[in-house]
C-alpha cells in the first residue's frame, strides 16, 4: 500500500509546478478556507460544549445554563460515575461485548459469503448472488421481523437480540466480494489447489491474510455500527433486562427519566441520592460513549474512505 502511494507521489511531482498556475485566486482561497474552517467548527463545537458542560460545576449549570465558559469547573460528575461503576461499568462492558462479538460474527458471515461469490467457478454463484440481492430490494419490515424474533426465536430481553438481527448485510458482502475479486490473484488460488489445499484452507490461510486491509475496513464498519447501535436495545429490551442495557440505551433511559440514576438507589446511601449532579452527569455519560469514537476515528478514517471507494465500484 505505502509503496503504491510513494509511486503516486513521485508521478505527481512534475505536475506540481503546473498545478501552481492552475490553482484558484488568493481571494477565492481565503473565502474557501474561511468557509471550511466555519463548517469544521460547526461540526466540532457541539461536542466541545457537551465536553465543557460535563466538566462544569453543578452550580455553574444551574446559574449560567449550558455554557462554553462555565463559572466553575468540577469533576464531580465523573467521580459520581466512577462511584456508580457497578451500573455504568456494566453498561460499558455490555457495549464492548456487543461490539466485539458482533463484529467477529459479522466478519465471519460477510467474508465467507463474499469469498463464495467471488469464486468464478462456484456452481451456485449465480443463485446466491440473487439470494443476497433480494433482501436489498424487499424486506419483511419491522413488524414481521419483530414478531418472528420475539415470538419464535425468543430474542426479547436477550443479549443476542443486540447482535444477531444486524450482524450481516448484503451491502458489506458485495464490498467483500469486490475486494476478493480485485485483490486476490486467481493464480495463487489455482496453485494452492494444485498443491492439494482444500477450499477452507485456501480461504483461511491464503485469501484472508492477503485481504487483511479489506477485512479491517468491514470490521471497522461493524465496530462503529455496533458501538452506536441503540435501536436493537429499544426494540428488544425493556426494563426487565436493565443489566443488558448498552451505553447508548442507558443514555436514552437517562433522557426519559432525569432521575434514572437516583432510582438505582440500591448502590447509594440515602443522603447521596439528593446530591446527584444530574445535569452534568448526563453530559459526562454522553462523553463516555463519545470519547472512544472521537479518539479513534481520525486514525481509522482512511480505511473508511478506502472502503467507500471500493464499495462504489460495481462488481
Amino acid at each position, binding site marked *: 500500500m505505502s509503496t503504491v502511494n510513494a509511486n503516486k507521489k513521485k508521478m505527481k511531482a512534475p505536475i506540481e509546478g503546473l498545478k501552481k498556475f492552475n490553482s484558484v485566486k488568493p481571494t477565492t482561497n481565503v473565502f474557501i478556507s474561511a468557509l471550511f474552517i466555519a463548517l469544521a467548527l460547526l461540526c466540532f463545537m457541539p461536542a466541545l460544549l457537551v465536553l465543557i458542560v460535563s466538566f462544569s460545576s453543578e452550580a455553574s449549570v444551574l446559574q449560567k445554563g449550558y455554557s462554553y465558559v462555565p463559572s466553575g469547573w468540577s469533576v464531580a460528575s465523573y467521580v459520581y460515575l466512577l462511584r456508580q461503576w457497578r451500573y455504568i461499568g456494566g453498561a460499558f462492558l455490555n457495549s464492548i461485548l456487543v461490539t466485539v462479538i458482533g463484529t467477529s460474527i459479522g466478519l465471519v458471515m460477510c467474508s465467507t459469503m463474499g469469498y463464495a461469490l467471488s469464486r468464478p467457478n462456484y456452481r451456485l454463484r449465480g443463485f446466491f448472488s440473487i439470494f443476497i440481492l433480494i433482501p436489498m430490494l424487499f*424486506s419483511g419490515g419491522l413488524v*414481521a*421481523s419483530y414478531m418472528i424474533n420475539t415470538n419464535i426465536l425468543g430474542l426479547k430481553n436477550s443479549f443476542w437480540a443486540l447482535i444477531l438481527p444486524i450482524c450481516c448485510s448484503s451491502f458489506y458482502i458485495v464490498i467483500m466480494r469486490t475486494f476478493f475479486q480485485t485483490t486476490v490473484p486467481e493464480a495463487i488460488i489455482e496453485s494452492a489447489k494444485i498443491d492439494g489445499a482444500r477450499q477452507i484452507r485456501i480461504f483461511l490461510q491464503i485469501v484472508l491474510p492477503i485481504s487483511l486491509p479489506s477485512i479491517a475496513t468491514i470490521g471497522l464498519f461493524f465496530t462503529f455500527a455496533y458501538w452506536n447501535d441503540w435501536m436493537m436495545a429499544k426494540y428488544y429490551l425493556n426494563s426487565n433486562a436493565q443489566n443488558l442495557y448498552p451505553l447508548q440505551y442507558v443514555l436514552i433511559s437517562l433522557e426519559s427519566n432525569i432521575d434514572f440514576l437516583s432510582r438505582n438507589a440500591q448502590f447509594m446511601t440515602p443522603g447521596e441520592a439528593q446530591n446527584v449532579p444530574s445535569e452534568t452527569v448526563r453530559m459526562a455519560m454522553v462523553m463516555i460513549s*463519545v470519547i472512544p469514537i472521537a479518539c479513534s476515528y481520525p486514525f481509522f478514517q482512511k480505511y473508511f474512505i478506502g472502503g467507500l471507494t471500493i464499495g462504489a465500484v*460495481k462488481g
Partner: protein
Amino acid sequence: MSTTAVKGKKKTGSNGSSFDNLEIFLLHLPTTIWYLIFCYAPMFGVVIAFKNYKVKPGKSFLYSLFVNSKWSGFKNFEVLFKSSYFSDMLRNTLVYNFIFIVLGVVIPVTLAILINNMWSQKLAKVCQTMMFLPHFLSWVVISYFVYAFLATDAGLVNRVLLALGLRETKNMWYTDVGFWTWFLVFLNVWKGMGYNMVVYLSSISGIDQEMYEAALIDGATKWQQTKYITLPTLRPIISIMFIMAVGSIFRSDFGLFYQATRNAGGLVEITQTFDVYIYKALLERPNINMSSATSLLQSVCGCITIIIANIVVKKIDPNAGLF
C-alpha cells in the same frame, strides 16, 4: 452472467476437485441460514398485514397467527388510508426525503469541489476530519448535543438570546414546529455532510491530473474545468448515491425523527414518518394491524421505487446502476 457460468463449468471439469462446490457451500452455510431466518422468514411474516391479528394466550405465535386470527383481506389497508394521520405520514416521509436527496447531492458535491481547490492541503485535511465527526455519532448522542443548545431553561440558545436582549422570554424550542421544520433539514445535512463530501472527494482525487493540465493549456478557466472534467467524472458515483437514496424514499431516519426530537409530543405533525409510526404502533400504543399494514406498504413501495430508479439510472448511464 451466462458467459461466466459456462466458463465456470469448464474449469470444474478440467480442474478435478469436485468437492470445491460442496466445501464453498459449507463455508457460507451459516450466512445462508442467517439470511433465511432474519431476511426471508419475515418476508412471509407479512401475512400479518392481511390478518386481524389476535393473540391466544398460552398458544404459540404461529397458532395465534394462522388459527386464531381471521383473514381480513385489505381491510387493514383501508383503515390505514382512511385514518387522519396517513396523509401527514406520507407527506413527511416523501417531502423530507426529497429535500434530503437534493441537498445530499448538491451540498457535498459543491463542498468536495471547493475543498479540492484549497491551497493548504493540511488545513483541508484537518477540516475534513472534523467534518467527519458527526457521521460517527449516534442520534442518541446528537440528541444530547441538540438538547444542550435548545433546552428551555439551561440551553445555550435561550441564554444567549436573553442576554443579547433579542427575546423577552425563553422559547420552548421542543414545541416550536416552525423551527423544527427546517432544523430537521439542518440536522440531516450536518450529520451527512462530511461523509458524503469525502465520497465525492475520493472520486475527484482519482481524476487524472493531466486532463486538467491539458485543459489549462487550452485556456480553460477553473469553472470550465469543473464543468467539463470534474462533474462528468463524478456522474457514475452521483447516480449510484442517487438510486440508493431514491430507493429508500419511503424509509426515514428513525433516529432523526424520533430520537433527535426527543419524541416531543408537540412536534408530531412534522416528525410522524412511516418508521416512527410503525415503531409507535408496534411498541408504544400497540396496534399490530395498523403497524404491519404500514410496514408492508412501506416495503412494497420501496421495492418498486428502487427498481424504477435503477432502470432510469441505467438508461442514463448503462454502467451505473445497482444491479
